[in-house]
């Protein structure tokens, strides 16, 4: 019998890994990969809680919508990345900082 905490630990590992990837990578696509991990951890949490606490299928519905949103996010995000690459010829995340005020370095 697997307990809820086991799922939460897996989910936590997914979350933290995604977070670390988001912070440490400088490539936008890699950051999007990290976001996918975080979304997956949230969806896993929803399904696990749906199983162990509420005993209905609302969690499944939520995770379905998360998957849908992740798909939309990936499509639009990657389109933006490709467009950005066409313009700047790089996808370094720190290049995406043109809206701030220029501070003398």
């Amino acid at each position, binding site marked *: 019998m697997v307990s809820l905490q086991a799922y939460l630990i897996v989910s936590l590992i997914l979350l933290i890994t995604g977070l670390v990837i988001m*912070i440490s990578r400088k490539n936008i696509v890699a950051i999007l990969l990290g976001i996918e991990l975080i979304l997956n951890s949230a969806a896993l949490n929803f399904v696990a809680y749906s199983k162990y606490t509420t005993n209905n299928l609302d969690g499944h519905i939520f995770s379905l919508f998360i998957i849908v949103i992740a798909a939309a996010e990936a499509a639009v995000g990657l389109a933006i990345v490709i467009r950005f690459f066409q313009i700047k010829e790089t996808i370094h*995340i720190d290049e995406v*900082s043109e809206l*701030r005020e220029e501070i003398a370095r």
Partner: protein
Amino acid sequence: MNYTISTIAPIFLLPFFAFVINCVLIKKVPKFVPWVSVAGIVGSFFFAAAIFIDFFTVYNTDYYIHKVFNWIDLSHGDNIFKIDLGIFIDNMTAVMLLMVTGVASLIHIFSTWYMKGDVRWERFFVYLSLFTSAMLGLVLSDNLLSIFMFWEIMGFCSYSLIGFYFEKEEAGNASIKAFMTTRVGDVFFLLGILAIWAVVGSVDIPSIYAAISNGAFEGKTVFGIALASFAGFCIFCGTIGKSAQFPLQVWLPDAMMGPTPCSALIHAATMVAAGVYLSLRMYPLMYVGELNTLIAYIGGITAFGAATIALIQKDLKAVLAYSTISQLGYMVLGIGVGAYNAAFMHLVTHAIFKACLFLSAGSVIHSYHDKYMPEMGGLKNKLPYTCIAMWCCTLAIAGVPVFSGFVSKDRILGDALYLFLQTGEGVYAIPTILGFVGAFLTPFYMFRMMFLTFHGKNRNKDKYDHCHKEHLTWNQNVPLLILSVFTLGFFFSGSLTGQGIISFAKEKKEWFKVLIEPPVQQRLEKFSNVTSQPFSFEDTRDMSVIPKSQYLKQSGFAGPGYDTSAEEEYYDEVHHAHVLGAVASVIIVALSVLLAFAMYIFGFISPSFFYDKLSFWVKALKNKYYMDWLYIDVLIKKGLLKLNNLLSWFDSGIYDRYAIDGWAFINRQVFKASHWFDRVIVDSVAVDGTAVGTEIFSLVTKSIQSGYIQKYIIVLIGAIVALSMFLGF
């Protein structure tokens, strides 16, 4: 018959949809436009006929249908302000619907022949459809407000159709004249509606009837006049404008600038009848306000005056225009003397034969390419069918027995005579005499017109030879012949002479008299409990409030000619007056016809004899009693323009110079002071100070906003951790 919105509304909506569809079609496929219009009105005719047949089957004086819909509701709490629209159908409405749709159908069909190939002839049908739908909407309406709205739509259509050939300057002027003249009446009409609203709190007809029945108008005055008189007068002014009565009749002759079918439909058969219809609807109010003498005088003067002007007209359509005014005068006279039933019957019969006359005139003008009678003559060989139809109508309008005009007009005259004989007061003598003189003149000018047009020798060989011989065509003369069939009297009276000598249907031979009864006090009692709530539906199929004999005894002006076996004495008086009137008018008509034959067929008396003897009178007639001169030259040019100049001088000289410029000067000074305050205090201290403060603060805060997303994430996570610490521990 089950009255739902789907059996009533198509009467109004089919022509309206035809209008809307035509608005679209006219740019894309103009050749379909006339047929859409015709289809709309013919479909409407079938629905109207269904309603009429049902009412005829029920055969109950008090039968009416009332449907109410909520239109505007701004009520909150106790402040009730709402306007409901609705449908009100009683016997009169049913007859009116049948008449309007039938006549309009035939006129539409005729127009497809008359207008074909004319300039903008598709647009003509667009206007016709809009007009017909507005007229039917007016007839169906249950309250004065929507009647007013449709009234104005009809005014617009009339304007557009009079000025249909706007290339001609006269047509444009005539349309403006018609529009402005009727506006005078409409302003009063609106005032009347407001006066009624002030008393009744609602403007729907059953509520007004109920208020009259409950005596709500008693003791109320405005400007020292009884309120009922005021309201009734104002509404009657609407009738004066729309139906071209005495002071405002000047627009109708000019309205003949429009195409002939529109003259037939609007300026003869239906729209001008709408004014009389409104007065008939408001008949109780007129009598509560004791306006009958005034109405009778206006009707008599109009009937006589227009008939005299018609004597000398050379234009075929002008004769008919003045005869229209004259006949409308008879209807108004009928309202004034209490001949409610006869006035409405004259409305219906007149609509039919006048429509036929105008269509015939249109047929003649279109075939002959001229409208001046001195150029015509002998056309009976060229246009036999038109001649037959026109003769039937002429006999009808002249009041020859057997024809419908005799039935209706002589009943009005008989009632006028009866009122004069019964009361013995001199005030009723003048309208009665004017009416009889008009009845003498009417056959004369109509026969004159017929003789000049169709008989005798032709006076212009070129045009006569050029005119083609007429064949029986479904959209040229078949509508005329159909209309001319209905000029026979027994359709309306149930007997050939109107006096019950030869009857065709034993039980319902007197249907017109039975179904259309004046809404006098006792008849109004059925409305006294009316609530007129939105979405209510009343159908009084089995209700009959009072037996007829009882009501006749109580009514003073009920109008004679009913089945009055219970009231022998009354019946004798009425019968006496009516026989007298009938005999008198038959004699008058015979004399008039003889005179016409003598002058224009046999040539015993030359018309120039009268021209010489009565030269002053003829001059007055040629100038239409100087009414146009009075209005345009005296009233407008001398009076109103002067007043305008005065007001304009006041506006620019006094108001503009001192009030407005002075205010501007003051403003400029205030502006100078405030500008200084603005520049020195607000701008430099408050605004700039705020900006400097903001800049200093932003220098501190913008170092956080580095633009590097990962730093934001770190800060975000830090914030989440801090927040959870704060909340959790």
